[in-house]
């Protein structure tokens, strides 16, 4: 369906399309109720509670997610009724003309109508949209070219454009202006004529455009997608367990129901005092089963939902509060927007990360260079401080000066003088910015670019150059050149810079390029971005001849790009190579360490970036993402056609399968094109590859491809975490199980859409290893414990029904039942949010322990069976002991009920105590205070004459037999469990136990642990240390010790790799099995 945007039409056509309100919320006023209810009741547990609520006719209020609103109140200039007005961004309608000033954010998708530039150009920064940091030029459509700003306010016309879509690289529209402006010529529009939402206007004083897509219908809005409600693996598991318990409950209810009906018909009719009526109502057979259903409804603890929500919000608070996750530079604390998914952090298996701004600071700095074979900056790591270079400049070495000249003017940078005289550079790419800045520091100051004249100050002299041609950078040519004429000498030079593979082959015959190749090699191993510099003097004839060809190529309509490339080829040859520059895209602090630590924790990393392939690979190298050649291996998947991609994919897959047994770090690299084809036609092969590969680099990918990759990993049942900082990461962040946004330079978009926002990439370690892990552990305990305590009470009720004629009598009174769930048992367990099984330091030193969380070892059907068994055992203990201790004349209903209840309360206090790893004062208060509170509360109940419990508790507490019964219950209930735990803890310790023991004994673990925090320095000491230790140990463990993580490091990371491969398989198999169950 086409849409027509009527320019400056204030009539009814405006209301055809939606306004510019952007909603990032899941709910609107209208759909809140049905949508939220649907989401709530798609969870089994809630369905169950609904059922129970209907049975009991209790009003159950489901917790609701607050609908979040976005600030749409930013003010923009818009033409209304021919007058410029300041209105709120959300009130922009399709067809409005929006005026933007420099550095404004584009509020909606616009078609450019006019700019301050005479040629109708303007620069936009699209990083928030596609992640590319260089500036892009946008051009006014030809019909509007050169129109007067005043006229623009009155312009009328119609723009024909396609329905909103998510393609940010394509726009096919038509513009037709109404008379009197121009005649009825239809003017085609392309993406070049648009300003897309969330881009920034740069280097242009003002620009104006017609709104074509607004609100959530913009290209960005369409590609944002609708976030699904996120459900953690733990929640899914709890749901599954709830389902299992529900089935168990139905079986119990059916068995007891049948038994009750049988007993009623055989025995109860004889028990005259019960006075069963001879003829019951039609539903009589259902009465006893339903009674048991109500009796057993406590089997699934209603309090678990409340408790979980409570503790989850506390986990989120702990993240918000964490001092160690505050970015000191910008004073940004971490923030958990989504409070419900902290456990998932501890179960992450794949991290998909953006590159620019996430791993790097997005700040480029010139570090080293190699000029005609001399390498500068290697000692100090900073060429700007290299005295040799400085003296070479002073002495006026021609090569060095030439090199600096290219640095200063071989670009499209625009210098701007600020008010205080300082020169600011506006560069399309941060690399060029870094080069110009560095040149300025080396005395070659690029001062001014006015029209075609460039002005440079060098050592106090002013030099003027005239730009004759600019041969722009394209990713195919991988180089850019300028043709300049030195004004003083009238000499014409071709100045070129570009990638080594694009420059070095073009050197003139006879030039030795070996030193440059070596320099490039050396720099890329350091993770620096390299550029080669070359020049050639052009004879005027040669230039003039060529410039004709170039001009012609520039004006062709068919295959223009190819023709231009061909024309450039004609002149870019026989270079004299000058040197190589090395630029550091400054990595954020601690990125390599973070990646290494998380790798050790068994997490796989994928890098998804909109950037170029070699940049991505270089950054990957520099942050430990992939290993350099001998150890690591990069497998490229490329190709432009289906066949090529298919072949390449199969080859990589084969290599990957072969090398899984080799100690090698294998990673695959794929670019956006190939990815598109692979995802479309070879999804299965690609999925196989995704499962095999621990590391992948995907470059030049679009936001929706990022999201698709997340989707693929999710479909393989992996827990994914996506981290990014720009608007182009939003979809991926929303798609992933956990989205983490870095509140960085590219704005807060990602941080807003994310579940967690952090200031720096390195906080990810803490977020996952500390907060995620603790959250998982705590929730695992809390949820299973909630089931345990409910089952305990329920089993007692079931047992009691066997001695009460299977009639469904409740042993406990309603007050006790209610208080048991919401008060007596929930408070002690709530303080388990303070429990730490291992200290933060230990976890950081042994990130491998995260495996327990990833594989779901603390919450799965097996552990749950343990808790189920424990509750059964405890129910037997409590029931048998209280029944036998309170026989005959003592078997009064209220008394027995309180004895059994006290037994349960005492047991649960001890169970919590035993399962707690670290006791803070709050835990003691909660556990023992709860016990005291239990008695206080029951004394209070016992003091009220009208209550059924009147005097019961006083009476009981006065009897020695009561206390003997309780102590017996505790000893009999806890003794075996305690003994079992001790035995396991000491003789069959898990890794977790060993770490706990070591940590608390202050043993050698700490000395071992430091190795991992300073991998570089201690690597050499590792093997001797381990060997000396192994001498004192029994020989059984010796071969194993050689494979300990520390020694493996020095033998090569292959072992780790392989090990984790198998581990991953194990874990995924395991979790899949669990899920099947």
């Amino acid at each position, binding site marked *: 369906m086409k849409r027509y945007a009527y320019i400056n039409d204030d009539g009814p056509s405006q209301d055809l399309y939606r306004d510019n309100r952007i909603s990032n919320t899941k709910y609107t006023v209208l759909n809140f109720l049905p949508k939220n209810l649907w989401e709530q009741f798609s969870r089994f547990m809630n369905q169950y509670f609904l059922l129970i609520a209907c049975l009991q006719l209790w009003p159950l209020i489901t917790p609701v997610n607050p609908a979040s609103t976005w600030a749409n109140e930013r003010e923009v200039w818009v033409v209304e009724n021919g007058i410029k007005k300041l209105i709120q961004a959300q009130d922009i309608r399709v067809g409005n003309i929006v005026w933007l000033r420099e550095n404004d954010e584009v509020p909606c998708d616009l078609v450019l109508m006019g700019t301050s530039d005479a040629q109708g150009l303007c620069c936009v920064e699209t990083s928030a949209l596609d992640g590319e940091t260089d500036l892009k030029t946008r051009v006014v459509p030809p019909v509007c070219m050169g129109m007067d700003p005043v006229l623009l306010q009155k312009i009328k016309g119609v723009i024909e454009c396609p329905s909103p879509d998510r393609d940010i690289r394509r726009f096919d529209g038509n513009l037709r202006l109404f008379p009197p402006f121009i005649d009825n010529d239809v003017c085609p529009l392309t993406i070049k004529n648009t300003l897309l939402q969330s881009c920034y206007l740069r280097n242009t004083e003002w620009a104006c455009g017609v709104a074509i897509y607004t609100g959530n219908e913009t290209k960005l809005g369409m590609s944002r997608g609708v976030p699904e409600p996120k459900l953690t693996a733990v929640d899914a598991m709890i749901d599954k367990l709830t389902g299992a318990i529900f089935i168990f409950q139905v079986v119990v209810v059916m068995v007891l129901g049948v038994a009750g009906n049988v007993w009623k018909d055989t025995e109860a009719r004889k028990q005259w005092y019960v006075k069963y009526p001879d003829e019951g109502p039609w539903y009589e057979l259902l009465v006893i089963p339903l009674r048991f259903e109500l009796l057993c409804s406590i089997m699934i603890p209603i309090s678990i939902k409340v408790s979980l929500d409570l503790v989850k919000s506390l986990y989120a608070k702990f993240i918000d509060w964490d001092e160690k996750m505050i970015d000191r530079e910008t004073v940004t604390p971490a923030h958990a927007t989504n409070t419900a998914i902290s456990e998932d952090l501890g179960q992450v298996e794949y991290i998909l990360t953006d590159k620019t701004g996430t791993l790097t600071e997005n700040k480029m700095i010139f570090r080293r260079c190699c000029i005609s074979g001399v390498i500068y900056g290697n000692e100090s790591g900073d060429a700007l401080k290299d005295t040799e270079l400085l003296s070479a400049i002073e002495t006026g070495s021609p090569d060095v000066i030439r090199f600096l000249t290219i640095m200063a003017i071989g670009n499209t940078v625009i210098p701007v003088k600020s008010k205080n005289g300082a020169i600011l550079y506006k560069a399309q790419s941060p690399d060029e910015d870094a080069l110009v800045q560095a040149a300025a520091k080396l005395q070659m100051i690029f001062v001014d670019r006015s029209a075609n004249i460039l002005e440079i100050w060098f050592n106090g002299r002013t030099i003027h150059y005239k730009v004759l041609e600019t041969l722009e950078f394209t990713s195919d040519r991988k180089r850019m050149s300028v043709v300049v004429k030195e004004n003083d000498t009238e000499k014409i030079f071709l100045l070129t810079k570009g990638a080594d593979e694009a420059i070095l082959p073009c050197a003139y015959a006879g030039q030795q390029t070996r030193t440059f190749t070596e320099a490039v090699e050396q720099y890329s191993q350091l993770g620096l971005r390299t550029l080669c510099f070359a020049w050639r003097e052009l004879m005027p004839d040669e230039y003039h001849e060529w410039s004709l060809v170039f001009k012609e190529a520039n004006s062709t309509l068919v295959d223009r790009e190819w023709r231009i490339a061909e024309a450039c080829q004609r002149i870019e040859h026989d270079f004299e190579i000058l040197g190589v520059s090395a630029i550091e895209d400054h990595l954020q602090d601690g990125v390599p360490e973070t990646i290494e630590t998380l790798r050790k924790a068994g997490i796989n990393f994928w890098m998804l970036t909109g950037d170029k392939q070699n940049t991505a690979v270089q950054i990957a190298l520099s942050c430990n993402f992939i290993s350099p050649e001998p150890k690591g291996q990069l497998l490229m998947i490329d190709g432009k056609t289906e066949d090529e991609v298919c072949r390449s994919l199969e080859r990589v897959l084969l290599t990957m399968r072969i090398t899984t047994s080799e100690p090698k770090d294998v990673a695959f690299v794929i670019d956006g094109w190939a990815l598109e084809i692979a995802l479309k036609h070879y999804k299965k092969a690609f999925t196989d590859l995704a499962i095999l590969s621990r590391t992948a680099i995907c470059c030049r990918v679009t936001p929706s491809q990022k999201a698709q990759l997340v989707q693929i990993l999710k479909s393989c049942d992996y827990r994914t975490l996506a981290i990014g900082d720009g608007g182009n990461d939003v979809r991926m962040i929303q798609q992933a199980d956990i989205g983490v946004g870095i509140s960085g330079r590219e704005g807060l978009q990602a941080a807003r859409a994310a579940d967690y926002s952090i200031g720096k990439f390195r906080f990810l370690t803490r977020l996952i290893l500390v907060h995620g892990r603790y959250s998982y552990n705590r929730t695992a305990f809390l949820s299973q414990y909630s089931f345990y305590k409910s089952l305990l009470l329920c089993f007692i009720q079931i047992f009691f029904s066997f001695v*009460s004629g299977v009639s469904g009598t409740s042993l406990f009174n309603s007050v006790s039942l209610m208080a048991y769930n919401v008060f007596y048992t929930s408070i002690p367990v709530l303080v388990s949010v303070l429990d730490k099984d291992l200290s933060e330091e230990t976890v950081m030193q042994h990130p491998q322990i995260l495996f327990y969380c990833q594989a779901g070892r603390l919450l799965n059907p097996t552990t749950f069976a343990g808790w189920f068994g424990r509750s059964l055992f405890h129910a037997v203990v409590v029931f048998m002991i209280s029944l036998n201790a309170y026989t005959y*004349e003592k078997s009064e209903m209220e008394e027995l009920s309180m004895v059994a209840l006290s037994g349960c309360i005492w047991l649960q206090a001890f169970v919590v105590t035993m399962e707690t790893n670290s*006791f803070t004062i709050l835990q003691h208060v909660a556990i023992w205070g709860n016990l005291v509170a239990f008695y206080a509360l029951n004394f209070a109940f016992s003091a009220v004459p009208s209550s059924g419990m009147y005097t019961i508790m006083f009476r009981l507490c006065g009897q020695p037999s009561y206390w003997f019964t309780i102590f017996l219950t505790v*000893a009999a209930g806890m003794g075996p469990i305690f003994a079992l735990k001790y035995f396991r803890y000491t003789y069959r*310790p898990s890794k977790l136990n060993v770490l706990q*023991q070591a940590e608390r004994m202050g043993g050698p673990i700490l000395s071992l642990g430091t190795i991992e925090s300073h991998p570089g320095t201690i690597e050499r000491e590792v093997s001797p240390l381990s060997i000396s230790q192994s001498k004192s140990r029994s020989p059984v463990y010796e071969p*194993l010790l050689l494979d300990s993580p520390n020694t493996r490091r020095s033998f090569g990371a292959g072992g780790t790799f392989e090990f984790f491969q198998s581990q991953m398989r194990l874990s995924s198999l395991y979790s899949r099995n669990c899920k099947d169950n």
Partner: protein
Amino acid sequence: MENTDTSTSTVRRNSKRPRYSKFTQQELPACKPILTPRWVISAFMLISIVFIPIGVAALFASRDVVEIVDRYDSECIPANETDKVKYIQTPGEKSCNRTLTVPKRMKPPIFVYYQLDNFYQNHRRYVKSRNDQQLRDSKEANSVSGCKPEDFNNGSVIVPCGLIAWSLFNDTYSLSRNNITLNVSKKDISWKSDREHKFGKDVYPKNFQSGGLIGGGILDPNIPLSEQEDLIVWMRTAALPNFRKLYGKMEVELQENDVIDVTLGNNYNTYSFNGKKKLVLSTTSWLGGKNDFLGIAYLTVGGLCFFLAMAFTVVYLVKPRQLGDPSYLSWNRNPGWR
């Protein structure tokens, strides 16, 4: 989407910066106990040292209690009666004589109980069939909710209503030794709190057992409920199908081999459901009646703990195991994950 000015956002974030406390940083000082062998073994030792003496004491206390149990339900049916149910449901005097021999000297107070077996006072229909308001307050005589089907009799309210009261136990015992009647006091056999707060002093039985079907005992309509102690005792429902309820107390000492003659009125119908009726005479100890369970259980648990302590000690000595041995930490010990 939002063009946030950097400086203002910094200010905003600044104010959001959390205040430091040990709680918010999860750094509260914590005690982290570990299960060292010494600790565990001494814990088990301690339990056994405490439990075994208690068990012995409890067992002695239970053995000190002298108890005479006499089942009389079948013996008190004349031999020529074939239909026991019909016999018990026929109105009239159904007295019966029993002889008990005292096995051991019984010191006062001696408690006289009746014991019913297979009687489900805890049945759901039964246990709720009462109305506490009505029992407590004369003004609430009309509240009979929950009392069905014993709530109204020909349209007039029954006090006390409900199945429990309706099925009041009504066998009677009179005990004599050497033809001298033993005084069985029926006073203070119920809980004081029940008499004072649960059963009203001004609530009198009304229309009780006057319907077509008579359940159990009848009540004197001139005595307030708070003094009908048999009813009060009966209405403390038992949690188990076998239970004893206090019939009365004797303040006499019975010597060994004393012969006690019991004349009992056998009125209560347990025959239709094969329930047993027993007469129990028992003394009491500090731990209550005769019940070996606590003593035996304490001895068992104490013994087991002692055994565990010993076993752990032996294992500890024979196969010492260093806690936190880092050799167990090699992450490659596949697949022995636990």
